[in-house]
Every structure is written in structure tokens, then in C-alpha cells.
């Protein structure tokens, strides 16, 4: 490696502990100025914590941070910003009711005073234009599509003279086209002399954009920054996953986990196991508009027994409403839903569950589990809610059954009376699987079932879904991770603006699926 005068950002032996948990452990890394650096690692590797230490949002337990050779006071956002470090958050930190101009202004420093609406728009128009963000400055954040919101967040981060821009998993919410646009934007920033640190978790993206790559695993730096020319995808995959786990995964699975390359996903490989009458049959279902998300607009969807159907789409295109419609939580304006041959259009969720509907919900800690209730109470909710409300419950019996089931699903726990909130994300998800993937299941909705999970837990969830599929259960998988969808789905349906905008069978082509995810978005922004 050459010897650059002063690194743009240098972390010296940074350690961060949250209570008993060590999120970062003695991380020492230095990033040369004017380049695009990738930081990669699986969930729980400490990437976000690293970014937040640099941005001053997290006070490290030990260690120091230098920007352009000068040590900054850690744990103070204003200090980091004054030194020129800005962070773009994974799920953007923008107040939804603010207009674009207000969003720019609230992050600015320096001369403020009283402004007028028009003055504010004038002030920020050229700034946004220079970053190629085309948007009406009086639009509210909540009315903007997610890809524009990201542009706004980047522009917000650049209102001051940023010298180091950190983007925390910026690609997670984007379509393949959106990612291309983001990378073009990042390259332009590099030309302007900004040092960009991209936190990523797909190797294909790292190889496509970065000058160097740094790998974190389990809160420690494994390697880096390595010049990108010196690493192969193969080596990177092993660095990210770690040798110990790499041995337990088949190659296919590992590649899906780290997004090695695969512009073409091979799919689950047995689309012919699906036969027999549909378990789920939705006929031109539209929902009434409500405040909770994009309404469905004439959705037709059929899932047969033994079939995993993946739903792809940029977040906010009706995926949540689809789940709510199937689980009787959204009002239908028209259309019909049949479940295992029964017309359940007007039936409540209880009746649908009795037929065999099971849900692994989006928000595991909010919808999936009651964190303040014990494991056995969480686990037994399925059965207990289906019987008579006056049925006598014998906790000892239920606890025993719960113990048996949790052991079967290899949940790590102390005893079934402990609160669900005390489990790690992976174990919490296993409790939900133990409850929802039972013998009575006919249709399982798995909504972002691996979000935030580490490699081992992710692979476990995939196995569980595959096994259920092989038993003849129909599975609806919603994910924003195309690698995941391509790896385990038999069929992928793309949603856009509440409509089905394309259906694909293996082998999946990332380009055509990506195009289906955005084609109207492109029209909208034009």
C-alpha cells in the first residue's frame, strides 16, 4: 500500500460496549482520502455501530477517532460534523412532515435567522440541483418515494462541507436500478473530493464500486482496508462468513448470503413439486386506501401447495398491505380471497388461522412477540386463541409442550418463563417459527423473515421454510433482498404501486426483475 499523507478517517482501537454486549472490539482502521471505501460484514458485525461512532452518535467505551489527522471529541455529533463527517442512515432519519427545503435547513449550521418559505426554496434549490436530486422543494418527505428520500438524505448530509460521507447500507432499500443511480452519485462525490465510506453487505456491490474493502465480523476487524484489486469474491465471502460457519453452509447458500455475484439466480430448483388446487387464491383484490400503506389495486395471486412464492419490490409498494389483506387486517374494496378452498373474503383472522394461515410478521418485536410476556405465553398464543375463551388452561402442561417445541427448534433459552424480550433476534425468530410452522399450517406468510439476523439464523430460517414447503405447505415470502428471494423461491412476483407488475420463474434474471420493480417509478420521476 502507498503511504498517503493523512487518512481522511482513522479509528484507533475503538471499543463499544452496550451493557454486557460488545458491539465493537479494538477496531483500528484508517481510510485514505478521496476514495470509495467499502465496509462489509453480516448483521451484527458492528458496521452500524462503527458508522455511528464516526458520526458522533455513539460514544465509544475506549479508543479515539481522527479526521484528517486531527483527533475529534468522540460522542458529539456537532464535533464530528464540524470536522466534516456526515452519516446517511439506513432507514433515513428525516422527519416525515418536513418539506424538502425544511429538511435541508434543519440540518444546516451557520447563519440562520428568520426565513421565508420562498427564501428557503431559493436557498436550497441549487444545492439539490448540484447533486442531481430532482424534486419540488415544497413536497413533504412522507410523500416522496423511497429512492428520492435517499437522495434527500444524502443532500441533507452534504449541506455542510462534508469531507467524509458515510452511507449505512444505502442499497438495502433500493431496486437494482436505484443502486446503479446511487453508485453513479457516489462516484460524482468522489470526483468532488469527498471520501465516501459505504457500508454494504453484498460482495457484488463492493466489487462494483469500492476502491478498498474492510471486513468486520463479530465486532472485530478481520481484514482491511484491502485494495479491491487484491481480493477475489471467493476470499471476501470467506472473510465475511468466517471459516467456522462457511463449512456448515452449502456453497449455494453462502453465495446467497453474501451476494457474491449471481446476476442470474438459479432458484429453488423444483418448481414441479407444486401441484393440486391453490392454497391461496386472490382474485382482483383491491383494498380501501388507509394511512398504513399503499393500497392494493387488483391483485391476482395464486399459491399452490409445496410452492414458495417470493414477493419482490421496493419497500412501500403494497407488500405490507398484501399481508394485511390476507390476514384480514385491511378492508377490501373488491375482489375475493380463498384459502384452501374456503372463501374467506369476509372472514376474520381467527377463522383464517383455523383453516391454516400462519404469519411470520414484518416486525418481529412488535407484531410477532409480546416482549414482556414469557416464552410459553408467546408460544401458546396460537392454540389458545383458537379455542374457547373460557377453556381452562393448565400452565404446567403448556410449558412442557412449549419446552418440547422450543428444543425441537433449537432455541437457546434458559427456561420457558423468561421474557421473550431477553432473546437475541435469531432466537426470537425461532420462537415465532416454532409457533407458526406447525402441522396445521397450510399457508405461511414469511414477511422479511431474516431481516437483522446473522448468518446462522438466516440459514436456519431458510431451512425451516424449505422443509415446510417440502411437506406441502404453501409459502408467501416477502423480502427486499433479491438474493434471498432468488435462492429459495420457486416463483417471484414483483409488486409496484400496489399492483402485480410481473411474474418470474427460475432461473431468475436480476435485470428483468429489477426493471419490473421500478418501471413506473421511472415514469413517475420523469
Amino acid at each position, binding site marked *: 500500500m502507498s503511504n498517503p499523507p493523512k487518512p481522511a478517517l482513522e479509528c484507533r482501537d475503538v471499543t463499544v460496549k452496550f451493557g454486557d454486549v460488545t458491539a465493537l472490539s479494538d477496531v483500528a482502521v484508517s481510510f485514505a482520502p478521496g476514495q470509495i471505501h467499502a465496509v462489509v460484514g453480516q448483521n451484527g458485525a458492528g458496521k*452500524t*455501530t462503527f458508522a*455511528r461512532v464516526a*458520526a*458522533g*452518535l*455513539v460514544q465509544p467505551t475506549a479508543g479515539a477517532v481522527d479526521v484528517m489527522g486531527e483527533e475529534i471529541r468522540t460522542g*458529539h*455529533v*456537532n464535533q464530528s*460534523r464540524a470536522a466534516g463527517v456526515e*452519516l446517511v*442512515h*439506513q*432507514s433515513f*432519519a*428525516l*422527519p*416525515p*412532515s*418536513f418539506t424538502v427545503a*425544511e429538511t435541508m*435547513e*434543519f*440540518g*444546516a*449550521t451557520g447563519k*440562520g*435567522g*428568520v*426565513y*421565508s418559505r420562498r427564501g428557503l426554496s431559493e436557498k436550497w434549490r441549487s444545492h439539490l440541483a448540484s447533486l442531481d436530486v430532482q424534486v419540488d422543494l415544497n413536497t413533504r418527505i412522507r410523500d416522496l418515494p423511497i429512492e428520492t428520500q435517499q437522495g434527500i438524505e444524502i443532500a*441533507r448530509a452534504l449541506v455542510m462541507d462534508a469531507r467524509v460521507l458515510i452511507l449505512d447500507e444505502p442499497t438495502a432499500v433500493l431496486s437494482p436500478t436505484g443502486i446503479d443511480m446511487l453508485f453513479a452519485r457516489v462516484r460524482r462525490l468522489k470526483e468532488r473530493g469527498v471520501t465516501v465510506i459505504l457500508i454494504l453487505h453484498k460482495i457484488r456491490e463492493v466489487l462494483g464500486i469500492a476502491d478498498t474493502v474492510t471486513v468486520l465480523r463479530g465486532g472485530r476487524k478481520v481484514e482491511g482496508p484491502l485494495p479491491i484489486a487484491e481480493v477475489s469474491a471467493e476470499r471476501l465471502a470467506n472473510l465475511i462468513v468466517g471459516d467456522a460457519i462457511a463449512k456448515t453452509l452449502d456453497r449455494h447458500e453462502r453465495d446467497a448470503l453474501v451476494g457474491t455475484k449471481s446476476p442470474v439466480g438459479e432458484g429453488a430448483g423444483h418448481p414441479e413439486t407444486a401441484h393440486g388446487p391453490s392454497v391461496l387464491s386472490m382474485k382482483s383484490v383491491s383494498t380501501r386506501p388507509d*394511512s398504513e400503506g399503499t393500497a392494493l389495486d387488483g391483485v391476482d395471486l395464486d399459491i399452490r401447495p409445496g410452492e414458495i412464492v417470493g414477493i419482490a419490490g421496493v419497500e412501500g409498494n403494497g407488500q405490507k398491505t398484501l399481508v394485511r389483506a390476507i390476514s384480514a387486517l385491511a378492508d377490501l374494496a373488491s375482489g375475493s380471497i380463498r384459502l384452501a378452498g374456503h372463501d374467506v373474503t369476509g372472514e376474520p383472522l381467527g377463522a383464517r388461522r383455523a383453516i391454516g394461515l400462519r404469519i411470520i410478521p414484518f416486525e418481529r418485536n412488535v407484531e410477532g412477540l409480546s416482549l414482556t410476556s414469557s416464552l410459553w405465553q408467546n408460544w401458546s398464543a396460537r392454540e389458545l386463541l383458537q379455542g374457547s375463551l373460557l377453556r381452562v388452561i393448565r400452565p404446567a402442561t403448556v410449558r412442557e409442550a412449549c419446552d418440547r417445541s422450543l428444543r425441537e427448534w433449537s432455541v437457546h433459552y434458559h427456561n420457558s418463563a423468561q421474557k421473550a424480550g431477553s432473546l437475541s433476534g435469531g432466537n426470537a425468530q425461532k420462537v415465532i417459527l416454532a409457533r407458526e410452522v406447525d402441522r396445521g399450517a397450510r399457508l405461511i406468510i414469511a414477511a422479511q423473515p431474516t431481516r437483522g439476523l446473522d448468518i446462522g439464523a438466516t440459514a436456519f430460517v431458510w431451512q425451516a421454510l424449505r422443509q415446510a414447503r417440502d411437506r406441502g405447505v404453501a409459502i408467501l415470502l416477502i423480502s427486499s433482498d433479491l438474493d434471498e428471494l432468488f435462492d429459495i423461491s420457486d416463483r417471484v412476483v414483483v409488486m409496484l404501486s400496489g399492483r402485480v407488475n410481473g411474474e418470474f420463474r427460475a432461473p431468475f434474471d436480476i435485470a428483468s426483475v429489477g426493471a419490473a420493480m421500478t418501471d413506473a417509478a421511472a415514469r413517475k420521476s420523469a
Partner: protein
Amino acid sequence: MNEIIIAILRSGTPLIYVTLAGVIAQRAGVWNLGLEGLMIIGACATIVGIMLTNSILAAILIAVFICVLASVLLWFVIDRLKANPIIAGLGLTGLGVGGTALAVQSIFGSQASVTAPFGLPKLGPAFGAYGVLSISVAAMPFVVFGMWVLLRRTRFGLRLAACGEHPFAARSVGANPSRMRLVALSIGGVLCAIGGAELAAGSLQFFAQGMTAGRGFMAFAAVIFGASHPVGATFAALFFAVVGALGIRAQLMFGDKIPHDLLQALPYLATVFGVWLSGKLRGGAKAASSFAELKDQ
């Protein structure tokens, strides 16, 4: 006609000051249900202050000081001790209503009310029929305008709103949501003191136990009705005052035909109607986010 306008301004001004206190707290993310308590503390402190110091300026300064102190207490309980803001606010209301009754009794013996020798300065004969109004009524439109500028036209206002709406976003640009809430509640304390002073010493010159009679809650309803916008909430408060004044009018005119109690209940019915209407228009009030300061997403 003048009479009605004067009556509306008299009953509306204290309500508007307290409403503005609620608006700034709401924007910073605190549902301030302590408004009723702060208002009555302001009213009581003004009258007691006049009695003790014989100076209206000193009395107001005392009221402001005590109300800010009470607001800081509320902030401490919510922000540092992580109490539920609704419960803490209601506690402050209880403290205010009970504490002022206790204070009056312990200072002046067992009296239900205290009458001061003078109140706030009046506008004077130069203003014709409106000369009977106090200077704080005249100052009110300027205060409303000032609050609108502060909250809607400055970076401070934006950061304050960000602290209420998305504390993590505020933190990301270097704002300190906790400190912002302290500032918002303190400014609210000043406004509640003035509102209480106007109630007790504006047109009247006495303090009676429980004299706010739910005006603080009405002010809170105006905050919700007015969508936490300083001008919108002011008009909501004014609307309640108009209904109240018309109720008194109606009592005088049809007092023998319509039950007296019903007419007296009009402002409160209007409040219920207002909150219902704002819920209809905007799909319900937003949940408080102050104590749900985003952990790490």
C-alpha cells in the same frame, strides 16, 4: 357588539397564552397535560405576589419564576426519570390545583379566595370601550406572531419540531432532544404564568381555589384542534372563547327557557366537538414520541 368582543378577548386571552405553551411543548414531543396546573400556579402566584410585594411587575416575575420552576420539574420527571409524560402532566395539574389552595390557606388563613388591591395595568381611556382590557390582551397578538415566527420560520423551530417528530433525526444533526424539551417547557412556563396572571389579574383582581376550572385542558384541546400550529391553535382557543361568550349571552337572553347548566357547559361541549372534528380531519392525534426516544434502530 363591543361588549361581546371584550368578553371574548377577556376569556380568550388567558386561554391563548396557555395554548401557546401547549403548542411549543407538543412540537417538542411532550403532551403537556400539566397546563391546567401551570395556569393556576401562575394565577395564584400573581395575586399572592401583588399582596406580598405591592408591585405588579414583581408579582409577574414571581409567577414566571415559579411556573418555569414547575415546568423544569415536569421536564426532570419526564426526561430524566423517564416517567410517562401524560401521568407526569396530570400530576403537575394536581400539584398546581391542590398546592395553590394550600398556599392560599396557609398564607391568608382559611379563605377560598384572595382579593388583590389592583391588577394588571389597563389600556386606558385612549382605547375607548376597549380601555378596560389589560395590556396583556393587547400584547397577545404580538406574542402569537412571535411564536409563529419562532416555531415556523426559524431553524430553532425546525429543530424543535424534529425533536418531537423524529428525535433520532434531530440527534443526527447535532440537536439535543432532551435540552430542546427543557427549553420548550420553560418557554411554556413563562406563557402559562402570563396566562394565569391575565386570568386572575386581567379583568378580575382575585384568586379563587380551582379558578382555572379546566381551562388548561381546554387549551390542550385547542393544541390538538389546531394541529400544534401556533396560529391554528390560537384560533381554536379563540373559537372556544367565542362559544363561551355566546353561552353567557344566551344565558341572559334565554336563561328561563334553556337549562342554565347546559349553557354553561357550552364551551366544554365545543371542546369535545373540536377534538372530535380534528380527529375526523386528520385521522387522530399523533402518539407522543418523547419518551420513545429511538434506541438504535
